[in-house]
């Protein structure tokens, strides 16, 4: 597929939607949908920044969000559904810095825009189409049990390996918003979705991805299984942005060993271990002799490699060894299953979401790359959860866990700063991220968890409460790329978590 093909298909698709344009159509307009939410809570312990700035720990940092939305839905000739919505959320960027000028952050930021803008055409029986074709900006969620964690087919990237949860709102924000085209197929217990969408969130921008998601439920919903793929950035509008052809985004072989072109990968640990050795020497050189020797040896090893990379960097491009470049494009895979255990009992005591056990496993990039991305299991988040019984007192009590053993922090710094598809390499003097070993914070963020409660009140009001250590990012007062979130997840380190309460209402 080429970019021209995309454009041609888009126009054809839109023409197909505009049927019978010369006749007076039958139009049914729904009342304006209005909604709002208020959310507040604490980052009990968290980490901000971790980019060009060192990470900053926070304790009991208050969060306040307020959102308002309006949406209009119209159906034309029973088959064409048009929706448009506007809205936004008040946020305060983090970390809040006290001062008067532009560089300080004690003011509301209002993230406003279209919340939904789509046209969907039904094919098949009116009210029960077997196929829906749609285009625009639309919300999409394939895993209804993913109350917070999960949904990574569209909320993650492979190189660098990152995951998102939440958004401008923290609770009840476990879907994704896509911009592009969709085809939704429904046949009995089978659902199949095909999506072609463009990347307008995280740079590099505008690349097109092709995704397919399917699910099948058996035994009247006792078991549901699903799977999907996302050919992320399949069509690259500017390949040199997707796989930046510069030495910093490269890897190459020297004397049979593969090196990366980012000198910091070697220089940062060299400085870290040298500093640790110096510190221990100053304290007690005799008692720490073994450790000092170990640190010195590691510092020397990394420093030697840094010299090699440095020497390669200084060469003219034509004289360098053959380089390959890390790409943002990737193949993502997903499989999931849900067992609705209450269907095994015949009891009216349970709510619709009670007693569901579920899991989702993803592969964030099938392809391995040398040095940074050598094991596929380092890019395989496994989410699992159970909805505890709420006995119709609470509508949802979701307990979720997740394991992702990535050797890197969940951080998008290199994308935003350099257009590199490489992991974040912390400042060697950032003591929050490198304590006993360089970048050892990345070993402390493997397990994530969430507890989420929900109560609907009368159909128009919902209450949410959530406590979690997840992949939350806050709108940043320092960084202004993509959705303007922090590079790094907030609850990145041991025992970091937050709680949040939300009330939402709408009609």
């Amino acid at each position, binding site marked *: 597929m080429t970019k021209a093909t995309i454009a041609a298909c888009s126009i054809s698709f839109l023409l197909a939607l505009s049927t019978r344009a010369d006749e007076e159509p039958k139009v049914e307009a729904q*009342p*304006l949908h*209005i*909604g*709002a939410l*208020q959310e*507040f*809570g*604490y980052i009990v312990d968290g980490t901000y920044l971790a980019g060009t700035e060192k990470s900053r720990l926070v304790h*009991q*940092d*208050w969060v*306040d969000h*307020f*959102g*308002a*939305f*309006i949406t209009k839905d119209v159906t034309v000739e029973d088959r064409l559904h048009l929706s448009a919505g*506007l*809205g*936004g959320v*008040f946020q*305060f960027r983090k970390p*809040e810095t*006290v*001062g*008067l*000028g*532009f*560089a*300080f*952050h*004690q*003011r*509301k930021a*209002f993230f*406003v825009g279209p919340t939904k803008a789509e046209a969907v055409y039904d094919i098949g029986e009116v009210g029960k189409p077997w196929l829906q074709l749609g285009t625009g900006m639309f919300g999409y969620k394939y895993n209804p049990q993913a109350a917070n964690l999960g949904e990574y087919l569209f909320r993650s990237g492979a190189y660098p390996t990152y995951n998102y949860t939440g958004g401008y709102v923290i609770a009840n924000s476990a879907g994704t918003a896509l911009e592009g085209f969709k085809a939704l197929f429904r046949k009995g217990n089978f659902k199949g979705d095909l999506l072609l969408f463009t990347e307008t969130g995280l740079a590099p921008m505008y690349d097109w991805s092709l995704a397919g998601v399917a699910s099948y439920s058996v035994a009247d919903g006792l078991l549901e299984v699903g799977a999907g793929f996302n050919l992320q950035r399949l069509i690259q509008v500017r390949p040199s942005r997707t796989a930046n052809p510069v030495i910093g985004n490269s890897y190459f072989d020297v004397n049979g060993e593969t090196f990366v072109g980012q000198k910091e990968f070697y220089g940062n640990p060299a400085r870290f271990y040298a500093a640790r050795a110096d510190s221990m020497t100053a304290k007690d050189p005799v008692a720490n002799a073994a450790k000092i020797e170990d640190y010195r040896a590691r510092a020397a090893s990394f420093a030697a490699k840094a010299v090699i990379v440095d020497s390669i960097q200084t060469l003219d491009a034509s004289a360098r060894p053959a380089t390959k470049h890390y790409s943002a494009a990737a193949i993502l895979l997903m499989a999931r299953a849900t067992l609705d255990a209450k269907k095994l009992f015949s009891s009216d005591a349970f709510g619709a979401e009670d007693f569901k056990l579920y899991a989702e496993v993803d592969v964030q990039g099938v392809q391995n790359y040398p040095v940074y991305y050598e094991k596929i299991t380092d890019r395989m988040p496994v989410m699992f959860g159970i909805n505890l019984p709420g006995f119709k007192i609470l509508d949802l009590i979701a307990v979720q866990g997740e394991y992702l053993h990535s050797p890197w922090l969940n951080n998008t710094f290199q994308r935003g700063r350099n257009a590199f598809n490489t992991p974040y390499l912390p400042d060697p003097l950032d003591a929050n991220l490198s304590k006993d070993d360089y970048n050892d914070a990345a070993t402390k963020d493997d397990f994530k968890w969430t507890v989420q409660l929900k*109560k609907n*009140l*009368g*159909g*128009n*009001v919902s*209450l949410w*409460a959530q406590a979690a250590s997840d992949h939350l990012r806050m709108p940043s007062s320092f960084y202004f790329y993509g959705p303007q979130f922090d590079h790094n997840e907030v609850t990145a380190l041991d025992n970091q978590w937050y*709680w949040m*309460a939300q*009330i939402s*209402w*709408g*009609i």
Partner: protein
Amino acid sequence: MVDKRLGLALGALLMSAVLAGAMDTKVDYKPLKITGVQEFGQIQSGMLISTPYQPMSAEWLDHFGSFLTQEAKVNERLLIQIGLGGTFQNGKPERVDEKFGGSQYKMFFIGPTIAKATVLFGEDRAKPAFSIGGGIFPFKYNSQAVNLGEYLFRTGAYPTYIMNGGLLMIGDNAAYLQGYHAAARLGNLDLDLLMTTETGMPPLYDWSLAALANYRIMDGAIEVGAGVNFKRILQVDPKRTVVDSAANSYFTRNGRHYVGDPSYYQEQFNFYDFKITNAKSPTSDTIGFGAKRDAAKAAADSVASWIDPVTRTVPGASKFTPAGPIFMAKAGVDFKKLFGIETKSPKDMILYGEWALLGWENFPVYYEKRTDRMPIMFGFNLPTFGLLNLFALQGEHFSSPFQNNSYSLGGSNYATPWYPNGTTKEFSEKEYNDLSTKDDWAWSVLVQRSFYRSFTLSGQIARDHLRTVGTDWFYGSRLEPTEDLHKISDWYWAFQLAWSI
């Protein structure tokens, strides 16, 4: 404190739970309300405290706003209101530069204008006896305060500041609150209870508890009201609300009260020294300045020497806080009703006043007298004989020894007043900071005429607490720290055309 804050969250959720009961949904939609407003005018004379100071003469202002609001009532009991809108503004001072830092472009301040859910109780659903709700909402307790007044939610005690207007100059006379609101309407008695969070003026997020009562006598011929707002009673981050710094502290040494900010004394020294040094000949203007200069210098040096160089605090000092209760009382007399006079405009011939105390507690040096924190607003709606809908004259007296300025809250979260450089003649002419003695009186004249049901034409001239959107300021609502009009002779005029349906 953590427990209190967690309690607040749980309380809020429980309160929210009250907002809705199980119900079969019957929804009554009101028509979508659309509103547009255009206003323009001129600051005849004023000054901005940007760097350098910007005197303003014949400074043009232009604002344009548009708003959408939808209301729906579920089962005649749950009222949901959502509005979105914004206003175009141009920051002041207008700085000629093509890059960031210049200000020759429109800014669009957009957001929810209202987003509130309210549960209504009582037999009469059109006028419910009791309601409880929450969200973002405008709140106005003094319907006569068309410009000045409405102090309970538009002021701060420490530092002492008063706001009026906002992103519009005319008709922007309510407070926009975020939080929860319970109201009772019991015959002639109105009661309101509000728990609101601070998302405008830093330090952010603190919660305030306010209660108001209003009573109508003789079918509304006389109306009296009172209220209290315990500002920042619940502090989400107490170290942000009460900053532990020498410059935000006060203490006593050798029987004398001091503040822990040497610059406060140093600027006084600079003023007196400048005056003495630059006097062409000893005149009566500088008599006594020598002693004041020496005293200021001694205080500045002493305070500087008492500050611990490590902690940057003064050992044993107490700290200023922006938290404190604000009290309000108001009254109005409608002479039409009192004397049975028939007029075409229901707003004619009403005499009214509002008094407030901005902070009960006195603090040494900066906040020593309650009367320095007592604005008094009074006004009268002249008879218009059917030619106008409103002809409001308002006056206000507020004798604060400092500028009406929130700079310290924005710049450092200090609860201290702003004070000028000693050598800036605009602020200190015959005495240090004597400009603040020239802003005690404020006034406002507003005329209003509606036509074709949907249009309202307004004209306003005033010396009030107008703040324009600041090119240099990025805290809170991005308005100027100081009011633009510093003297009773500073004033502006503005016209506004608004349409709504």
